[in-house]
């Protein structure tokens, strides 16, 4: 349908330029116009992103929809875009989620709506750029630039401690990424190119790989976020406006995991293999310990934020299991490794939907009650039956109920973990208990029981706008949960190629 268009460039620049237009149209007078404009741009971007899906050839592992032009010849930096089975689903997820946050902020945001909408649109373009960039410096520009709109979003439209939260968010992420910058420059001088694919094939000694691996780890572990550098996330989530939380959880965290797939593992496979125990350890701590931390939270947003960290632990666990599965030929070998990576990818997409839905759900309650304290609620089901139906459904999905997308990814990773080590699987499976415990306990306290107080009594059920968001997400969660095969098919060739690449040592290249 869109075969002859420079689709990726459009996907990057349409939201950015559209966001600029929204920004310039300003906040004077009636703001309905800018809201409609923002919605039109985000829907158009989503429709264009579907062109990636229809035009994608899932039988090959090479980059597709490639566009390349010289950008900064002095440093051999190219304007190079392209997608494979890893990045394509994430781009569509980004475009999809952006529509939701635009709708979610429709009535709620009354303070400077043009700046609010513009921030989301610009951020959408930058995030798509992160997934599509195939030149490391081009990637880095998007990676850093996307912090700016998020910084503004949390700081301007956030809660009481927004300044603290947003500064912490920005500085944490910046600290991680500057060391990645040094690693990238170093590789440029070793290999003469900033192309990510060239970097993946470049020979590196073990010592170099170790430094590069840890430089990347600082950048990506903060972003995922992995224990023990996760502390910015609960603060940022609690203070961010609903839309900001949704983007943060649904997309930004995925960018960290995507970084592992695109940079750390292929560029430094030997170091990744050597230090995989560290990542697995950090992931399991995230799954188990953070699960317990989530249990005791009093603030709903904080609870979901911690649950996000635990769920992202599954992603990094799945990715770094592959070395142990591959080196264990008595088990089913390569197939198990593919299961782990695909499970991690499914978990990423599924968590995008579910965490987005959870934050939107909390947003719906917050807009009415202006509190996120679990204690302030009780018996919401009596006043908001339709909403409660959705809320319970999403909570079940968050807990990993079979039939929802939350189950698929976790199940795949746990099965794969059995191929590596029983105890990994045992600890990872704890999440099924812990996740159910903290999510369902929250549901019980908030939605069931007697109507707690007069403010709950005054609640009204969700309107058509909120219903449309919830319905879209519910469909997505169900479809991915019941029939994940199409998504797995898309990435299968890419995953096989990825596993093939990281299983070959780089040390013999010298």
């Amino acid at each position, binding site marked *: 349908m869109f075969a002859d268009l420079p689709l990726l460039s459009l996907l990057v620049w349409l939201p950015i330029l559209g966001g600029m237009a929204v920004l310039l149209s300003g906040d004077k007078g009636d703001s309905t116009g800018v809201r409609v404009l923002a919605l039109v741009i985000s829907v158009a971007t989503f429709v264009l992103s579907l062109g990636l899906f229809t035009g994608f050839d899932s039988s090959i592992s090479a980059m597709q929809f490639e566009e390349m032009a010289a950008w900064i010849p002095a440093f051999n930096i190219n304007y190079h875009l392209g997608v494979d089975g890893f990045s394509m689903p994430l781009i569509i997820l980004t475009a999809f989620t952006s529509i939701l946050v635009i709708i979610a902020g429709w009535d709620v945001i009354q303070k400077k709506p043009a700046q609010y909408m513009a921030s989301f649109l610009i951020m959408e373009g930058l995030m798509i750029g992160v997934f599509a960039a195939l030149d490391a410096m081009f990637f880095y520009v998007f990676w850093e630039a996307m912090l700016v709109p998020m910084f503004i979003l949390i700081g301007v439209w956030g809660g009481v401690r927004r300044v603290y939260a947003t500064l912490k968010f920005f*500085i944490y992420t*910046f600290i991680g990424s500057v*060391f990645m910058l040094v690693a990238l420059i170093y590789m440029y001088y070793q290999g003469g190119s900033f192309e990510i694919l060239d970097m993946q094939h470049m020979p590196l000694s073990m010592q170099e790989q170790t430094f590069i691996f840890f430089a990347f780890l600082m950048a990506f572990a903060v972003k995922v976020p992995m224990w023990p550098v996760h502390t910015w996330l609960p603060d940022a989530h609690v203070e961010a406006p609903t839309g900001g939380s949704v983007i943060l959880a649904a997309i930004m965290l995925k960018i960290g995991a995507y970084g592992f797939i695109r940079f750390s593992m292929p560029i430094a496979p030997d170091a990744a293999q050597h230090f995989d125990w560290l990542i697995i350890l950090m992931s399991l701590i995230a799954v188990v310990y953070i699960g317990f931390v989530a249990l005791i939270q009093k603030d709903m947003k904080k609870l979901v934020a911690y649950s996000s960290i635990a769920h992202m632990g599954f992603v990094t666990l799945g990715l770094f299991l592959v070395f142990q599965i591959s080196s264990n030929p008595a088990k089913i070998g390569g197939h198990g490794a593919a299961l782990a990576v695909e499970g991690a990818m499914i978990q990423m997409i599924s968590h995008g939907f579910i965490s987005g839905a959870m934050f939107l759900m909390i947003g719906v309650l917050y807009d009415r009650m202006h509190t996120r304290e679990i204690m302030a609620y009780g018996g919401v089901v009596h006043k908001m039956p339709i909403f409660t139906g959705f809320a319970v459904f999403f909570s079940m999905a968050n807990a990993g109920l079979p039939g929802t997308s939350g189950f698929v990814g976790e199940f795949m990773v746990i099965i794969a973990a059995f191929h590596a080590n029983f105890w990994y699987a045992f600890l990872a499976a704890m999440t099924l208990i812990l996740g159910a415990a903290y999510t369902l306990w929250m549901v019980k306290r908030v939605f069931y029981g007697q109507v707690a107080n007069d403010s709950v009594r005054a609640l009204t059920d969700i309107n058509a706008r909120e219903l449309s968001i919830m319905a879209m997400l519910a469909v997505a969660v169900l479809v991915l949960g019941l029939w994940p095969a199409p998504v797995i098919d898309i990435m299968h060739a890419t995953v096989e190629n990825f596993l093939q690449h990281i299983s070959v040592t780089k040390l013999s290249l010298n």
Partner: protein
Amino acid sequence: MSLDSLNVALALPEIFLLVMACLVLVIDVYLPAEKRNFSYVLTQISLIVALVLIVSSPVETRQLAFNDLFIRDPMANALKSFILMISFGIFVYSREYLLDRNIFKGEFYVLSLFSIVGMMLMVSANNMLMLYLGLELLSLCLYALVAFNRDDGNASEAAMKYFVLGALASGMLLYGMSILYGLSGSLQFSEIATAVGNSSDTAQHIGMIFALVFIVVALAFKLGAVPFHMWVPDVYQGSPTAVTSLIGTAPKLAGFAMIMRLMVEGLGGLQTDWQQMLIVLAILSMAVGNIVAIAQTNLKRMLAYSTISHVGFILLGFIAGTAEGYSSAMFYTITYALMALGSFGIIMLMAKKGFEADNISDYSGLNQRSPWFAFIMLILMFSMAGVPPTLGFWAKLAVLSAVVDVNMTWLAVVAVAFSIIGLFYYLRIIKVMYFDEVTDETPIECGRDMQITLSANGLAILALGVYPASLMALCIAVFA
């Protein structure tokens, strides 16, 4: 000797500017106060014409004039063009500021023009004497300009401090130069370079290093590198913002040229020696500049410490000691001058009669009062912090990669570590503008000329950040 061999035409822009400076001086005497605008317009026209004179006569190779005292090469052309453009911006930004304070006088323009001539002479110096004369012309004009608002006690104090420390630095420079002259027997940079290359015996080499120490100290004083930075914060804060913007922007380009001419062209043979000294200066500057800036509540003072840290980054390019290193340092210097110009422009925009707008808290809620200029300041601050896609990021990338290229990755790691600290105080400005509640509701008013120039200044930082290839190519071509 015939007049032809002097090659006077090469120095036409400088001569023209000098004539115009004298003309403004004379005409201004006969102008009534309400027609003072004429001096301003005449000054701006002179700058534009001088710029046209430079741009219209590009040079491919080095060309010498005035018995090899004066040099015109691609680097000189590029630096002079930026000096003139930046000065143009300063005059646009400062007009209303000066009017509000009753110091909209011809002397401001005359002294500024002379200082610009001084900078241009420094850029084109091929001889130690020439370099020194250019430097003194610049410095003396700046001393006078700092004290220009003579009823202001802070300004007088700043001028005194600036003068005493500046004179000390000039003395150091002269001392170093005289030792060098004694050892090499020449004031010409090319002959000094030959002498340095031939200095095989140890005694002479030690003498050269002795001279080098004095010269490095003097340069560090003039640039404001730690530990010779004490004058910078006081002078930045005490001077009228119009003068601060003149001190903090274009002279950095002249300072860059001074290092290039003196250290690289003249004393390039001693590179391993000055490299070590510069490493110490650079690390200290980045450390002190970035850390102390966090504690500031005065924006001008904060920008002073920010300058110090940026000087540290500029020195990184020289430390690399390669053509890439020099071009990255030049790229960084130009970038810095443009960013600083915009930042001081914002301060002058916010300043009103009897209100300097130099406290960080004065910027509370700027996004409510003027979303557009808050956005411009946002770009400038992110650029200073080195966040893409602004020009400041590419400047940092260029110097860092120059350092990594010569296998000093550790230095690059130190530099990025300090840039993280630096990030905090730039973010604080954005925090104040965007997240804090507005305290002063009065709308911001300024002339159309200032609005356009300031917007162009800010947007150029963003646009050049999205497409930095042209400016980078210019800086690289200069050293090809």
